[in-house]
């Protein structure tokens, strides 16, 4: 096919099996086949699998965009209409097709072309598909940022949620006799200081079931806190309290500057048990205010957050502690230089390494879920989860520092006539202490950070509160938790750096 290299001494490439146009045509039907027939096998296979992946992904996206349509053409049209982005992908794929055919043509002509353009096109398609699959939509960041702001501002400065004032209920009431009898109830005695309510009249009829309105009462309240809303409530003869409603809304009054208010109410309808619905009944109408009194004090949320952040730090600490205790022996079994003695020790080495790798590859969050099932919700499950991960991670780091100890000092100490124990104490331990300390502190750092989130799956610690408050959209409380986590992690970072400095 080609006579390009006829005059050269370079080894003759084998000629293409098919003419260039046929190669191009075949590659249009099955991408890459043309290249394979033109003896550019590896490039052909690459194109075939690359194009196969792209088409597969594209088909998936099309079906996803038009899930209810039947038939390839219908799906194609609908998807293009609903997802304009797919038009771009279709276009690039078409260009890619033509390019592949062109590449097959050149391959059959045996003109060595660099696959730069082709590779670039492949990258572009994958990038476009990736953009689509991960639903990247930068516009939403701008359009919906405003929605996030209220929540974010609460998280950033949550401290008004950290203090609260003790609350007190202030109420005053008047008795109403139902129904009216000759014997009138004495009006409420006026009292100094304490709030009270006077009703005119002091007896009446309830609203009937058929809608006949009850007696209209005029209620006057005295000695309430001015400006603070008061709710009107009824207490029926069964001592059940309920709030008075007017057309469905709770009735609320606001006392004037003298602490007084006046309001007309119609006695409500109330279904009472038959045994209590007869004869003489005493009802009470009252007004109730909620007032903040006394000094500010730490809120329930703040107390909880403090309690849980302490729990968090201790979960991290205990997990690190148990992690060290278990990781030290494990690390000796996983150190190649100590375990290369015989077949048996080498198998122990590989066994330990394998187990450690498996344990380490499972995230602490997953371990927490497993241990929550095993030992129930709470900090113990979290401690176990972090311990499991720590043993594997520390075991690996420790064993690597054991593997890297120098032989020289050990030899020198042996030469002084020291026994095995003395050699370990004077030549081995001084070499492994600094890396051990360094890795341990690093792990403690990780464990505390992990324990802040492990509560999310019920492993104890502040993570549980954080997730709970976020779900309750109590962003101020969540903000307190976030602040505590940030402070803890920053402090830990600072101290671990300090300690590491001293040892390394």
């Amino acid at each position, binding site marked *: 096919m080609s006579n390009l290299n006829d005059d050269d001494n370079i080894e003759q490439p084998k000629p293409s099996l098919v003419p260039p146009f046929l190669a191009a045509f075949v590659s249009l039907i099955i991408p890459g086949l043309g290249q394979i027939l033109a003896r550019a096998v590896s490039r052909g296979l690459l194109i075939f699998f690359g194009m196969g992946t792209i088409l597969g992904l594209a088909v998936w996206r099309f079906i996803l965009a038009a899930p209810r349509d039947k038939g390839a053409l219908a799906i194609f049209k609908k998807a293009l209409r609903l997802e304009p982005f797919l038009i771009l992908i279709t276009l690039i794929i078409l260009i890619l097709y033509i390019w592949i055919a062109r590449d097959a043509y050149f391959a059959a002509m045996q003109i060595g072309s660099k696959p730069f353009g082709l590779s670039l096109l492949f990258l572009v398609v994958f990038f476009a598909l990736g953009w689509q699959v991960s639903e990247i939509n930068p516009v939403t960041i701008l359009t919906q940022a405003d929605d996030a702001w209220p929540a974010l501002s609460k998280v950033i400065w949550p401290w008004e949620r950290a203090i609260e004032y003790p609350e007190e209920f202030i109420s005053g009431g008047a008795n109403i006799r139902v129904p009216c009898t000759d014997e009138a109830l004495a009006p409420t005695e006026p009292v100094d200081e304490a709030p009270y309510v006077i009703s005119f009249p002091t007896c009446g009829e309830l609203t009937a079931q058929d809608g006949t309105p009850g007696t209209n009462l005029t209620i006057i309240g005295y000695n309430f806190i001015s400006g603070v809303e008061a709710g009107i409530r009824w207490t029926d003869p069964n001592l059940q309290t309920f709030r008075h409603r007017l057309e469905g809304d709770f009735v609320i009054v606001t006392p004037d500057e003298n602490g007084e208010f006046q309001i007309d109410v119609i006695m409500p309808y109330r279904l009472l048990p038959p045994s209590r619905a007869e004869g003489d009944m005493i009802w009470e109408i009252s007004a109730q205010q909620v007032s903040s009194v006394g000094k500010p004090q730490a809120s329930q949320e703040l107390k909880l957050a403090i309690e849980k952040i302490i729990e968090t730090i201790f979960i991290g600490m205990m997990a690190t502690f148990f992690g060290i205790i278990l990781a030290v022996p494990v690390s000796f079994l996983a150190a190649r230089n100590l375990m290369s003695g015989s077949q048996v020790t080498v198998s122990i080495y590989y066994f330990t390494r394998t187990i450690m790798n498996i344990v380490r590859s499972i995230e602490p969050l997953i371990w927490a879920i497993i241990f929550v099932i095993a030992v129930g919700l709470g900090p113990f499950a979290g401690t176990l989860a972090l311990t499991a991960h720590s043993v594997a991670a520390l075991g690996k780091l420790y064993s690597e520092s054991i593997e890297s100890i120098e032989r020289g*000092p050990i030899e*020198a100490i042996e030469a*002084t*006539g020291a026994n095995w124990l003395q050699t370990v104490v004077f030549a081995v331990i*001084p070499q492994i202490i600094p890396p051990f300390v360094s890795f341990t502190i690093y792990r403690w750092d990780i464990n505390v950070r992990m324990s802040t989130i492990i509560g999310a799956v019920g492993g104890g610690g502040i993570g549980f509160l954080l997730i709970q408050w976020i779900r309750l959209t109590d962003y101020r409380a969540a903000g307190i938790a976030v602040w505590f986590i940030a402070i803890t992690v920053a402090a830990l970072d600072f101290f671990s750096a300090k300690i590491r400095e001293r040892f390394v």
Partner: protein
Amino acid sequence: MLEVRHLTKIYDDGTVAVNDVSFEVAEGDFLVIIGLSGSGKSTLLRCINRLIEPTEGEIIWNGVDLVQLQGEDLRNARRQIGMIFQHFNLVNRSSVLTNVLSGRLGYTPSWKSLLGRFSPEDLEKATQVLERLGIADQTHKRADELSGGQQQRVGVARALMQEPTMILADEPVASLDPVLAHSIMQQLELLNQEDDMTIICSLHYLDLVQRYASNVIGLRDGEIAYRGSKTEIQAMTDDEFKEIYGEEAERVGHGLEGELQSTPEAEK
């Protein structure tokens, strides 16, 4: 009196490092072993204090075959044999004092050394040894803060703490520059002449060999290729040296008197 008879060491991978080597070292000798890297010098030295197990042969020292010793007896023999290394082999992160004191481990009960405690006599001795070697002011520094020459002095100090009657020195100056090389060698010479210690030392440089050796053996491929007395080695020319030693032989320079030359071996 040390007598090495038919010593052979074959490593697990089949390498014959030392092959049927026999020689004698009289009390108070300064024996220098020369030979290329890989000729078996280090293995030979380590066989003497059994850091490496010999495959065959006998090492008779003061009437006892060191090869037969086990456990406590071996450790008691070792503590009388000081050893100095090319790369000093100090515990870098420990203090100079701890490194020097570790020379007393053979005389210290395990429980005491577990706590890192040494007797007041040992501490006193460490101070004396450090002063003798001129590094008393470095006592509380970390070993790796010291220069190469100072580190080797710590190595010598550690060996002296053992109160040895024999010192094995495995290329003690190969990591040092020429000036320091001479000063360390002079320390060894002093120990040899004033303290009557037997010294077995491997060396690379002909002028050092001529200056310090009282006897010389040359190793090539694990076998003895040369034996010479002090007078014989003095008469040796560079060409003869190269013949038994190989082309890599180098002079350090003209010692302290001459100008200092950089040595390609110094970095080794």
